[in-house]
């Protein structure tokens, strides 16, 4: 079994550094703000317009930050590589994670979005049970989503590190 070498492990870090030029830093910040306010609005919608959440702030910021990183990597991939390996799925996962976080974060004794599952066939017992679970394990689920985001980030950084993924620069004449 071949373990990753130090050189191999350094590649995604170098790729990350090459991605985060000023324009992509700005993009990441913008994505962070959009995702954060999307989360706020989802929570407030379920709480009479008041942002009330039992999820720890650190986990919230970590989820929103890693989701915004995924979007940034996706945009970089579209503009700078052939095959667009990270573009669509990275964008999807980051957005889904934030929105799903907003649904989970609103679970509990307000009128959660999750209760609308009753309209698609879940019984009252199943909806209530699911709401209870999500309300009680919000922090753990957020932690798992952050870990999942980080795993996908590293996966795509490794893929973007491969030589075949890059568009060769054309020499100016």
């Amino acid at each position, binding site marked *: 079994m071949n373990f990753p070498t130090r050189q191999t492990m350094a590649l995604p870090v170098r790729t990350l550094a090459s991605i985060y030029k000023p324009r992509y830093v700005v993009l990441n910040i913008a994505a962070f703000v959009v995702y954060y306010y999307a989360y706020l609005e989802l929570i407030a919608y379920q*709480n*009479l*317009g*008041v*942002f*009330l*959440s*039992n999820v720890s702030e650190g986990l919230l910021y970590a989820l929103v930050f890693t989701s915004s990183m995924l979007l940034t990597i996706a945009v970089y991939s579209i503009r700078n590589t052939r*095959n*667009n390996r990270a*573009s*669509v*799925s990275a964008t*999807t*996962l980051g957005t*889904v994670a934030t929105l799903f976080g907003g649904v989970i974060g609103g679970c*509990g*004794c*307000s*009128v*959660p979005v999750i*209760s609308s*599952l*009753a*309209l698609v066939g*879940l*019984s*009252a*017992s*199943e*909806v*209530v*049970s*699911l*709401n*209870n*679970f999500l*309300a*009680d394990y919000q922090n753990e689920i957020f932690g798992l989503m952050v870990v999942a985001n980080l795993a996908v980030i590293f996966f795509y950084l490794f893929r973007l590190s491969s030589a075949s993924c890059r568009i060769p620069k054309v020499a100016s004449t």
Partner: protein
Amino acid sequence: MRHAITKVASVLIVLVLVLGGVAGYFVLVRPGMGTTAVATSKISASSIPATYAGIGDPFTSSELASINGQPLSNYQTAGEMLLNGSIANTVALGRANHYQPLVVNGKPSVVVLQAISCSDCAMNRWAQALSLAAFGNFTALYVGYSASGTNHVTTLYWGQDNYTAAQGVTFGSSYASKYLNFYAVDYDSPVITGGFQWTTLAYLAQHAPNSTWQAVTAFMENASNALGNKAPPTDTQLWGSSVWFGGIAVILGNSTSVTGTAAPVSHLSHESALAQISGFSDQYAWSNYAAADVYIAGVCPSLTGPPPVCSLPAIVSLEGRV
């Protein structure tokens, strides 16, 4: 393009499998309802933490006097403030559904289906008590808190709830009125050591102590289904012909600028809460009275020979806006 679609599909399939597994766990593995309490350890009365001081203790007579027999001017002033946008906390209008009233012994009814673990219910109980006090009298209320996992909100309990048992239901209150009936149903779960827990209306009906309570819970289940809500949340309420799914107020303190565990209601002593309510000189008190006005405005149209509170100009103005 096909490669991108495949990638998206792969990600979505993984997400669906994960979510399906979570949902399947509840459908296939966790049996029935009312068995989902997270914390099941019992806590002895002698080891109640200071943050839950007095939980379950009956209100003293002076504390009851902060709720019972309050001047009608408080309700009028708070109603005016609500109508002119001066209430700092959130008191929502326009959220009532309409259904036929539950008439028992010739009187319409107020029914509240709540969970003692629930912070939403906790914030709304003060207003509900104030509104009921405008139509009758409490001979007992009890010191309460929402669960530690729901920010430990200072509140009251209608009855002697079991805040340590894994699960249960407490029916009833110590309230009497010549204008209406009051049916309080509370789902009990471990408050000091646990988080939010709720149940189905069917579970509440199964544990009803007699035919009257069975009829009340069945009525609420029928009302919820008729109004299109198959999984009613905590604080599902009937006030005359007005039905609310969830509380109508988010009252955190004297403003809503600080939320979550830092919100004032997460650290409020009952003495302070009652002093503010009876003092009627800050947003916490005005907000609770304003929310009470909404409940009053919801029930007054169902009453025959209504009491003076229903004639207050602010209540009359609110009746069409609940």
